[in-house]
């Protein structure tokens, strides 16, 4: 008896726990296997790039927090660095060190969330996630100490940072740095060699090196495919050339490698923070800049290694107090280019994991 099958259009999202926000995929499935997929964007499009044109440089700063809202510090840093380069603003040494500490703490938060939600997608519902959240909360407390905010910090300023570190910050940070390696070991014991994790993520959703480069993938996605490309190393910005750290890479470019790269980056970030705390100089943290200032006409592209990949700000000035054009090179958005190639041929249940392993933030995808 012959069984007839027919392709079925299946809608995933925009409101679906595995999409980490409001992302939608229209999948064409043959049984359980995905034969075609179309990502649908725009549910969180707020026109941030257009808004920038009607605000002064300083007024746009809080909006950068709202791009990738789990890496606000990095967004702040990328934007203030671009404007500083454009206007030739000097940053005090102490502020540079504080920025690096904040950016790396933010990277730990983002990677913990990425790993936690990756396991959520895999079906280990919220147990690993809450282990990650315990540590994430401690970093959030640290951020609250320095700027009073727990999610959207708006901490950096042109020419430095808004507040100096309070006296209780360094002891609390040292406590965190001391206990975090044991926590990472705990995650590893729980997850890294887990039979189910290996079976579901090894050799699943392979992104080859050639495809990763061709599709402009960045960050952990690119590095998991074996490309040794980290902006902190290949084009050091701020004071990253003073620190000693490794760039973890994967070999196969599968979901497991992307997860491994993020875990190993946790340790590297801790290394960088330790070195920055040891080298933290005394002095002022801000060279004040007028609220409304006019950078000279010109353009600048400035980039940092964000949590999800290369985060760049292309700022064009016409000499007025408002930016003429700001374009954000959003890693979450561009990393989704290869999504279609990664998903076709996999079962629907794998597609959820593959998508989760890319780690996107919709605030940055749609802007």
């Amino acid at each position, binding site marked *: 008896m012959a069984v007839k099958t027919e392709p079925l259009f299946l809608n995933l999202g925009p409101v679906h726990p595995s999409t980490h926000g409001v992302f939608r995929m229209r999948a064409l499935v043959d049984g359980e296997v995905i034969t075609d997929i179309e990502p649908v*964007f725009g549910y969180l499009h707020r026109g941030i790039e*257009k808004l920038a*044109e009607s605000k002064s440089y300083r007024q746009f700063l809080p909006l950068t927090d709202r791009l990738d809202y789990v890496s606000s510090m990095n967004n702040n840093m990328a934007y203030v660095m671009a404007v500083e380069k454009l206007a030739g603003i000097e940053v005090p040494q102490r502020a540079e060190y504080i920025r690096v500490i904040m950016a790396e703490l933010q990277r730990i938060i983002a990677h913990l969330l990425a790993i936690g939600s990756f396991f959520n997608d895999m079906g280990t519902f919220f147990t690993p996630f809450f282990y990650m959240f315990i540590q994430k909360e401690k970093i959030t407390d640290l951020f609250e100490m320095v700027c009073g905010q727990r999610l959207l910090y708006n901490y950096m300023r042109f020419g430095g940072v808004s507040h100096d570190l309070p006296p209780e910050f360094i002891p609390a940070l040292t406590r965190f740095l001391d206990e975090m390696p044991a926590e990472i070991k705990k995650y590893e014991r729980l997850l890294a060699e887990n039979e189910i994790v290996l079976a579901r993520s090894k050799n699943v959703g392979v992104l080859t090196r050639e495809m990763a480069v061709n599709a402009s993938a960045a960050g952990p996605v690119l590095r998991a495919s074996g490309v040794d490309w980290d902006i902190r190393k290949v084009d050091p910005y701020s004071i990253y050339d003073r620190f000693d750290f490794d760039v973890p890479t994967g070999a196969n470019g599968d979901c497991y490698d992307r997860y491994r790269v993020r875990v190993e980056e946790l340790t590297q970030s801790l290394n960088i923070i330790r070195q920055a705390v040891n080298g933290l100089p005394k002095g002022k943290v801000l060279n004040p800049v007028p609220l409304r200032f006019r950078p000279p006409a010109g353009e600048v592209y400035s980039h940092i290694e964000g949590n999800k990949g290369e985060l*760049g700000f*292309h700022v064009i000035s016409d000499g007025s107090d408002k930016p003429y054009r700001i374009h954000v090179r959003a890693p979450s958005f*561009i990393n*989704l280019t*290869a999504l279609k190639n990664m998903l076709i041929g996999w079962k629907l249940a794998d597609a959820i994991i593959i998508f989760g392993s890319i780690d996107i933030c919709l605030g940055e995808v749609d802007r």
Partner: protein
Amino acid sequence: MTVQLEYNRIVEALPQNLASSVIAIEDHGLIIQPERLTDIAAFLKVEPGMELDYLCSITGVDCINYFEIDYLLYSIKLNHRCTLKVRLADKSEPAVPSLAGLWLGAELQEREIFDLLGINFSGHPDMKRIFLWEGFPGHPLRKDYGHGC
């Protein structure tokens, strides 16, 4: 440190028929004729010594008299970068060849520029709006669109 490629060096390396389509060398990029964009990009992608194999970012700008599109290219192997720029004087029906055939990474970024600036990328496999819905009036990042706030 990612080195900025010297634009004179690029122009010298280009074959004669492509070098003639370079309009100007500016501080922030090499300005080329839009019709030859794909040829020049394809040449720079594989030419030994250039090997600009990574399309980092595409920015579209409305410069009032013309549209400008900036392509930022990296070489992963040689760790250098360069910016190609095209300027489209025809503002009523702006069009430029798509780079999606060379770099998959151009696909979503070109759709974004089509959506927000209304520039058509000929040869793109799926040229349609990406963030805004079909039927949305106008293209918000154009300077004559109005701010509304």
